[in-house]
C-alpha cells in the first residue's frame, strides 16, 4: 500500500523540478542566440570567467541578453499567472489578464508620456500608474449600491477599458504622425528591445503580485465556486478577492509597463496549463508561471533572431502561439471542457 504514495511523491517532485529547471534552461538558451554573432565558446567564457573574453562579448551576454531574458521571463510569468487567477476569481475561462482595463489604462499612460514628455522613463512610470488607476476605477465603476460583485466588476472593467481606449484614440489623433505616432504604435505591439537592468525594478511589483497569488492558490479553487458557496465553505471571500485581484493587477500593470501590451498570453498559457495538469489552481498557478516565463523567453528569442529587423513580440506571440494552441486543443480533446 506504500507504493502509490511513493510514486505520487515522486511525480510531484518531478513536476516541481521541471517547473524550476525549464525556465532556467530557456534563460540559458536566450544567452546563446542574438543578432550579434557570438560563438558558443565566448558566451560560455563570458558566463564563467568574464575577464577572459572581449568587452563586446561580456556586454552582449551580461548587459543586453541577460536582462532582456529576465524581463521576458517575469513578464510572461506575470501575465500567465494573473490570467489564471482572474479566470478563477471571475469564474470565467475566457477572461485574461487585461480584464479590468489594465492594458488600455497602461496604453493611455504610455501615450501621455510619449506625446507630452517625449517618452523615455516617463513611459514606464505613466503606464504603470494608469494601469493601476484603471483597476481602481473599474472597481468603483462596478460598485452598485455599495456592493461589488464579480459580474459588476467585469462590467466596470469593460467600461473603463472602453473609456481609456477612447482616450488612447484622442492621443493618437493629436500625436505628431512622424515623431510620436510610430512610438505609440510600436508600444502597443509590445517589445523588450530597450530593456536593461534598470527596468528590472518592475520585477519587484511583479514578484510581490505573484507571491500574493501563489500563497492564495488553493483558495482560488474555493473562490471559483462562486461567492455564496465560497462563503458557506468558510472562506473570507472579500479578503481573498482583494489579495488575488490586487496581486494580479500589480503583476499585469508592471508587466505591461515594461513590455507594452502583449495580449493572448494571459488567456492561453493558463489554458495550456489546464490541458496539461488539470484545473486545480494549487498546481495550475505554479505551472502557469513556469510556462508563461518559458513561452515569453522563447518568443523574445525568436523575435530578435528570426529576421534582420526585430518582430514585435505581441505579433509573434499570437502568430506562433495560436496554431500551437489549436494543436493542443485537438490533442487533449479540449481538456474536459465539453
Amino acid at each position, binding site marked *: 500500500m506504500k507504493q502509490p504514495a511513493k510514486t505520487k511523491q515522486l511525480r510531484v517532485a518531478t513536476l516541481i523540478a521541471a517547473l524550476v529547471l525549464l525556465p532556467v534552461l530557456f534563460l540559458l538558451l536566450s544567452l546563446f542566440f542574438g543578432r550579434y554573432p557570438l560563438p558558443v565558446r565566448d558566451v560560455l567564457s563570458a558566463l564563467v570567467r568574464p575577464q577572459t573574453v572581449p568587452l563586446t562579448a561580456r556586454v552582449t551576454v551580461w548587459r543586453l541578453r541577460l536582462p532582456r531574458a529576465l524581463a521576458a521571463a517575469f513578464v510572461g510569468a506575470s501575465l500567465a499567472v494573473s490570467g489564471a487567477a482572474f*479566470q*478563477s476569481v471571475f*469564474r*470565467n*475561462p475566457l477572461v485574461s489578464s487585461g480584464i479590468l482595463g489594465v492594458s488600455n489604462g497602461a496604453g493611455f499612460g504610455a501615450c501621455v508620456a510619449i506625446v507630452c514628455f517625449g517618452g523615455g522613463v516617463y513611459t514606464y512610470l505613466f503606464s504603470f500608474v494608469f494601469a493601476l488607476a484603471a483597476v481602481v476605477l473599474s472597481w468603483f465603476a462596478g460598485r452598485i449600491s455599495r456592493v461589488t460583485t464579480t459580474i459588476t466588476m467585469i462590467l466596470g472593467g469593460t467600461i473603463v477599458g472602453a473609456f481609456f481606449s477612447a482616450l488612447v484614440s484622442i492621443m493618437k489623433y493629436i500625436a505628431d504622425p512622424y515623431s510620436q505616432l510610430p512610438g505609440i504604435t510600436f508600444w502597443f505591439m509590445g517589445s523588450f528591445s530597450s530593456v536593461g537592468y534598470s527596468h528590472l525594478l518592475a520585477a519587484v511589483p511583479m514578484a510581490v503580485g505573484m507571491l500574493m497569488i501563489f*500563497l*492564495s*492558490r*488553493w*483558495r482560488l*479553487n*474555493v473562490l*471559483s*465556486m*462562486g461567492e*455564496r*458557496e*465560497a*462563503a*458557506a*465553505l*468558510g*472562506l*473570507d*471571500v472579500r479578503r481573498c478577492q482583494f489579495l488575488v485581484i490586487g496581486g494580479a493587477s500589480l503583476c499585469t500593470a508592471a508587466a505591461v509597463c515594461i513590455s507594452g501590451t502583449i495580449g493572448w498570453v494571459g488567456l492561453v498559457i493558463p489554458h495550456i496549463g*489546464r490541458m496539461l495538469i*488539470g*484545473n*486545480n489552481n*494549487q498546481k495550475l498557478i505554479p505551472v502557469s508561471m513556469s510556462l508563461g516565463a518559458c513561452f515569453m523567453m522563447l518568443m523574445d528569442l525568436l523575435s530578435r533572431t528570426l529576421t534582420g529587423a526585430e518582430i514585435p513580440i505581441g505579433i509573434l506571440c499570437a502568430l506562433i502561439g495560436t496554431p500551437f494552441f489549436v494543436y493542443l486543443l485537438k490533442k487533449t480533446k479540449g*481538456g*474536459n*471542457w465539453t
Partner: protein
Amino acid sequence: MILDIRDLTFSFDGEPLLQQLSLTVDSGEIVCLLGPNGSGKTTLLDCALGLHRTFSGSISLCGKDVLTCSRPQLAANVAYVPQSHTPTFPYTVLEVVLMGRTAQAGLFGAPGNADRDICRAALRRVGIEAFADRPYTSLSGGELKLVLLARALAQQTPLIVLDEPTSSLDFKNELLFLETLADLVQHDNIGVLLATHALNHPFFFETQGLRTRAVMLSKGQPAQCGTPTALLTPQTLLRVYGVRAAVLETTYARGSAVKTIAVLGSEPKDVI
C-alpha cells in the same frame, strides 16, 4: 440544540418577509422548510448560514451567536448544499469535495493527507467513491448533488442546510438522495434543515422513522410548525397554496403506512 432561531424578522426592501419566526433544529432531527415560492425559505437558510446579517432577532449555532462568528467558525458548524450549482471549471470530484475543508486549511494553507482521507470517507458515505478522480462536469445531475452532499459531509458539521436539493432530480435519483440523507440523520446523528417544495418529503422522513418536523412559511402570515401529520392537512394546503388536496394513507400488509398528498385541483375563485 444545534440551531436556535428566535423571533427572526427579516425585511427585503422595506417589505417584511419573515416575521417573528422561531425555529430549532436538534441533532438527529430533520426539519423540513415548506412554503410557496417567495415565502422566504432561502432567506431563512441564508440567515442560518450567516450569509444575511441584517436581520433582527437572534440565531445561535451550537450556542454561539452567528453574527459574532467568523466565516471559518460558521463553516465548522453548518454546511450547505445549494439549490443549483453551475460548474465553471472541470475540477475532479475529489478536488471539489476537498473544498469542504476550507475552514480547517488556514489563511494560506491547503488541505493535507488527513483532509484527503476525510473526503474519501465522505464520498464513500454517499456511495460515489469510484468517481473521485472523474471531472465533476461529466456527472449527471443526481451524481452532482451527491458530490455536493459529500462536500458538506467533509465539513464534519453537526448541522447541514439544504436548499431544494432534489428539485432537478429524476424519480429514482430523488429517492436515492433522500435515503442517503435519512441515513445520515439516523446513523450519524446529524441535524438537517431542508427547504423543499415537495410536500411528500416530510411524510417520507416520518415513514422512515426519523424525528421529523415541518415548518410552513407563508408570505404575510406567521409560520406554522408541527409534525408532518399535524401540519400538512387539506386545510393548511388550501390556506397557504390555494390548492384543494387530500392526504391519502396507504397501509401495507406488514403494517407500515405511507402518507401522500393527492392534488384535486386549484381553488375555484368563486367559492371563497
